[in-house]
């Protein structure tokens, strides 16, 4: 009987030690911000930039929104159960005199848990925007 109790205590202790060992040293999250590409596009209206920016953000981060009517687009990545997001990006479109626009990509990530770095997010955005990366 006594041996059985000690065996249970040993099993319990070993299991707790294993579980705390698995979860007790989480990697520390770090902020990662990246200044992405800047491109100048000629002979295209800024509405072309708006459409591409929105589609690129949806493709990479799953959503997009314009801030007012500014041609500035942003998106946060998927949220976890606590409502927190760990990736974000901004695509700025600015119309140039005459015909054309300039577009910039700026990205942020918190890794872990974000699976991609800010640099990778910006690279994917530029690729989706139109192969101008």
């Amino acid at each position: 009987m006594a041996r059985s109790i000690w065996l249970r205590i040993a099993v319990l202790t070993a299991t707790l030690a294993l579980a705390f060992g698995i979860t007790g040293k989480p990697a520390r999250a770090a902020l990662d911000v990246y200044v992405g590409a800047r491109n100048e596009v000629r002979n295209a209206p800024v509405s072309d930039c708006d459409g591409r920016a929105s589609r690129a953000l949806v493709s990479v981060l799953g959503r997009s929104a314009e801030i007012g009517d500014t041609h500035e687009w942003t998106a946060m990545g998927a949220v976890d159960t606590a409502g927190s997001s760990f990736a974000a990006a901004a695509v700025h479109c600015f119309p140039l005199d005459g015909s054309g626009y300039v577009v910039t990509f700026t990205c942020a990530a918190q890794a872990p848990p974000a699976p991609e770095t800010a640099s990778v997010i910006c690279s994917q955005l530029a690729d989706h925007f139109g192969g101008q990366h």
Partner: protein
Amino acid sequence: MSRRGRQAALAGAAMLVAIVLCSSQAPAALDFSVGIRYVSDTGSTSECSAKAQQSLNAFLQGASESSPGSGDWIAHSQNGVNGTPTASAVVRCFGLSHGYVVTFTCAVQLPDNPYTANALCLDVAHKFHGAGAITALAAIPTPSPEPTGCAPNSLVGTWVSDDNPKLTFSMGLGGDLTDSEGVSGNWSLKGNTATLIYYGTHTLTLSADARHLHGGGYSLTRRC
């Protein structure tokens, strides 16, 4: 239920409790601010760059141009408690035929950072523009300096067994210890009474010079 079944159930429950306890800490979240943009009808890109660098350094540190002449500037906060920056801001200048356009984008890590991305971007933009209210940003909490030497209020450091010099213990700031064979445990200190949880619980006494631990079957000397 058989004995083995009860033991397996007990182990499973213990594992679940431990994982839940360890997972209850709220993870940090990313806070992002975008949308502030100024268009200036006068001035050059180099003027924009100078103001970008100055306004970033007013609230962050080490403002640098992502590539020389690009007009894209980035700066980071000092390191937070985790040893990495918890706030960053990006100011991007683009020259126009007359003047320039400048955008402001900020990101912070919450709750480690004491202010939001919006608060940071507003301050940087207002500083750049030379107008608008500047709100004081709280200082970023810094990591506690690791005790050095033979601190009498801490066991942090490397300890050597007096009986077996090959056996050493590395005691960390967080109350963790690891021996020279990789076996881990914990330490705590109350007054001059130390408790080591390492193959059981041992009570030891810290000497007045904070260099020696005796008791509980151990005799250790700290390297300091």
